[in-house]
């Protein structure tokens, strides 16, 4: 296990957005979008992050690519060239380097492409910034990219409105690939697509991963999709990771009550996969004002007294000889003996 190479290491990350209220627009509180996340991403794996809206999964990823700024915690990028880079960085060289290492695929095929630019135009400037001087060369690069996402080359000079949703998403992926990244963050990359198209894109992503040896950080709200594509899955609830483990282990165990509820709420086609439905009461709490203790305790049917007081830590356990993380007091009672000694290293 220890041999696996860590490319991205996140520890204690908190991203808060200030809420300005009152006469002077003073900051009266924070939306705690990401509230203490520890995460390692291994080279070549697909890490799925699943959670409902407002759980902070998108904010987490945007913080990684420096679209949001963190207020606490560390993000480290490990690399042969620079050793490790702490993000966000101000150093121009590091910044340029990191921009070429981590790329992002967006959710909405409508807004992820600029309606005023052709496919080539959308990538042209990025290539220029990366020092590809000749226009011919740049066009060749874009052509190759298009081919690699199973699109025709003549799409080069077409405008976004001439494509269907699935094609746009391919272009979005191609754009992310144009700087030859190592880590690709896919933010709900297939959620807005029709099912038939969704499968095409999922195929493409799997294919790219195998071909280019990419590392994926795959964000979605759909358990079935994340199960299909991921090697490991992290479940987020209200700014924290509540459960993290290898896909198979996670689906087998589902220690955390929230994961269980989430799993049971998913409507399934195959009757054999249907589980007893656990109906949660109420909505996800307001991230500006999370309940004390465990954020889930108000909706939890296995709530214990200490859950209302103490926020559970994300602890590491050994399941099937692999690291498995859960943040729940009740689960901890059960799994105490399996607790992984190495978690202190983090």
């Amino acid at each position, binding site marked *: 296990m220890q041999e696996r190479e860590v490319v991205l290491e996140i520890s204690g990350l908190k991203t808060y957005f200030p809420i300005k209220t009152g006469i002077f627009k003073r900051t009266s509180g924070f939306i705690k979008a990401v509230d203490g996340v520890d995460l390692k991403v291994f080279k070549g794996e697909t890490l799925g992050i699943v959670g409902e809206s407002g759980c902070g999964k998108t904010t987490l990823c945007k913080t990684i690519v420096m679209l949001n700024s963190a207020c606490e915690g560390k993000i480290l990028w490990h690399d042969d060239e620079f050793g490790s880079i702490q993000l966000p960085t101000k150093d121009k060289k590091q910044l340029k380097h990191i921009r070429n290492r981590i790329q992002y695929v967006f959710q909405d095929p409508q*807004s992820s492409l600029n309606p005023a630019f052709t496919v080539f135009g959308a990538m042209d400037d990025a290539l220029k910034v990366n020092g590809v001087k000749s226009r011919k060369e740049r066009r060749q690069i874009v052509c190759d990219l298009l081919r690699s996402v199973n699109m025709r080359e003549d799409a080069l000079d077409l405008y976004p409105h001439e494509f269907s949703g699935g094609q746009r998403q391919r272009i979005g992926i191609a754009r992310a690939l144009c700087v030859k990244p190592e880590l690709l963050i896919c933010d709900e990359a297939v959620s807005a697509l029709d099912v038939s198209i969704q499968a095409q894109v999922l195929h493409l992503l799997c294919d790219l991963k195998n071909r280019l040896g990419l590392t994926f950080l795959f964000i979605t709200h759909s358990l079935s999709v994340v199960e299909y594509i991921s090697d490991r899955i992290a479940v987020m609830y209200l700014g924290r990771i509540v459960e993290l483990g290898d896909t198979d282990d996670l689906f087998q165990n589902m220690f955390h009550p929230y994961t269980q509820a989430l799993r049971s709420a998913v409507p399934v086609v195959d009757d054999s996969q249907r589980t007893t439905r656990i109906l949660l009461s109420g909505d996800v709490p307001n991230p500006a004002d999370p309940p004390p203790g465990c954020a889930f305790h108000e909706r939890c049917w296995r709530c214990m007294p200490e859950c209302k007081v103490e926020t559970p830590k994300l602890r590491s356990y050994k399941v099937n000889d692999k690291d498995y993380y859960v943040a729940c007091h009740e689960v901890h009672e059960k799994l105490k003996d399996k607790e992984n000694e190495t978690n202190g290293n983090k």
Partner: protein
Amino acid sequence: MNSMQRRLNKKMDILLERENSGPLKKKNLNRALRRALQNKLALVGLGIFLSIIILCFFAPLFTKYDPLKINIRASLQSPSAAHIFGTDTIGRDIFSRILYGGRLSILIGFGSAIGASFLGVVLGAWAGYRGGWFDFLMLRTSELFLFFPQIILCLLLVTMVGQSVGNLLGIFIFTGWCGIFRMTRARMLSLREEEYVQALKVLGVPEPIICYKHVLPNALGPVFVNITLSTAIFILQEAALSFMGLGVPLEIATWGNILNVANNLNILKVNWWIWLPVGTMISLFVLSINFIGDGLRDSTDPSQQG
């Protein structure tokens, strides 16, 4: 509702007929432009607009009179074959004055509109895209400008810097940028949240390039509409200032200055040909611009389909 329903039904029948009769050719024209061309008012506006522009800019072809030629013994002649709009108090041919004066009025209108738009767009794009203190400062400044009734500000500035065409242009630009600034800023504020902008940031493209090259073009649609509409406003404003004797110096012919004589009740009462044609000309020109602007706006506004 019934007659409306009938009308709609008829329209739908025609479309259905057309659709069934064979595949329609895909039109290459820009959709917005095509819709604008389907707008009858916009077409009428364009017609009037072009005629007036042609009349003014090729004025020597349409009138044999020098607009400055004074014939004091032929003053205040009513319209005739020789002078189709008659002559003014010092015997100048009004028709030729309107044509030549139009050149300046139109120049002031368009010049100010383009200048103000340019200023507003450049500032508004950056303020909306970047936010922060620059945005705050510019927003407050523009609010201050908005609180000043524009004509009051113009009057104040005219008295400060004096009356001349150049000054007036400068004043209009100085006082007129904030509408377009706010518009561009608002568009940029929503556009900067678009995912392609974030994608460009993640790709490491420099901010000014993202702002002005990638995002701005998408904000310009309503701005172009606004340029036409603010041209109309500036022409009206020039006329109003001139009417109060504080616009372009009175000896220079502009539409406003020609109309200024209507201040005199006697002329208002008796010599209708001095003020009516030029008043109509201003109104027509501004109206035509408004027709065009309206058509353009309708065609760029998705909620106004029809």
